């Protein structure tokens, strides 16, 4: 019984340690030299602002994502079929620049992965 308890206890400890080594892999860079035409989207009070933005078609573009609160947020952009086309790093109280790949003309909804009720739309034209 004591041995079982020890094994289970060590398993629990290993689970916590394994979780601590988890990493997030998504494209983002600190907002340094930013394209002056970059789209700026802020997140505050569990809302995006603005919720409607425009971007050029067939050209990679930048989004300066400014999370102004302690809750973690990011931007996940999907196409009209719901397929993910871009996922930004989740950040807290931080401004980052997302490098979004070229997109064909159309309407692309975006959400925060942590709070899917936070929504917006990128119109690519």
């Amino acid at each position, binding site marked *: 019984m004591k041995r079982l*308890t020890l094994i*289970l*206890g060590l*398993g*629990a*400890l290993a*689970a*916590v*340690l*394994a*979780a*601590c080594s*988890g*990493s*997030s892999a998504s494209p983002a860079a600190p907002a340094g030299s930013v394209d002056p035409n970059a789209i700026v989207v802020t997140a505050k009070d*569990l809302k995006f602002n603005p919720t409607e933005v425009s971007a050029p078609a067939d050209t990679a573009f930048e989004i300066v994502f400014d999370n102004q*609160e*302690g*809750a*973690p947020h*990011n931007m996940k952009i999907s196409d009209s079929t719901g397929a993910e086309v871009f996922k930004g790093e*989740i950040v807290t109280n931080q401004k980052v620049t997302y490098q979004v790949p070229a997109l064909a003309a159309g309407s692309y909804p975006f959400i925060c*992965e*942590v*709070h*899917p*009720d936070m929504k917006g739309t990128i119109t690519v034209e």
Partner: protein
Amino acid sequence: MFARPTTLRPADVAIRVGIVGLALATGYIHSTLGGLLFTLNAVGYVVAAIAMVIPLALAVRFRWAIRLGLMGYAATTIIGWAIQGPYYSTAYLAKGIEVALIVLVAIDFVRMDGNPVTVIRRELGSLVALVTRRSGQAGAAA
């Protein structure tokens, strides 16, 4: 109202402290995420942590149910996250804590209550006996 003090072995105390610590840790993480769902989740963990140690007679009598409930709550949280995400470092940390929490509560259950199947069978038997007695009294009164 309050249960009579019981003697716990040092290992039991350590396990209980671990359970409360892990429950409060994942509760705290959820409280920092914002939004109603995460806040309610955090409140649930805090309530469970209190229920695990509060010396009320009712809580002590049904601690087995609190243990099962806490394991189910943590498992539901993990499954919900596995389905919906998001998958990032803080979430992995919270899920690691919840897995450890389930393991510790399971150890606590076995040490304090014994075989879960036996416990549930015994409690169901008590419930059936109670209902039978009550309906017998109601029939006699009529």
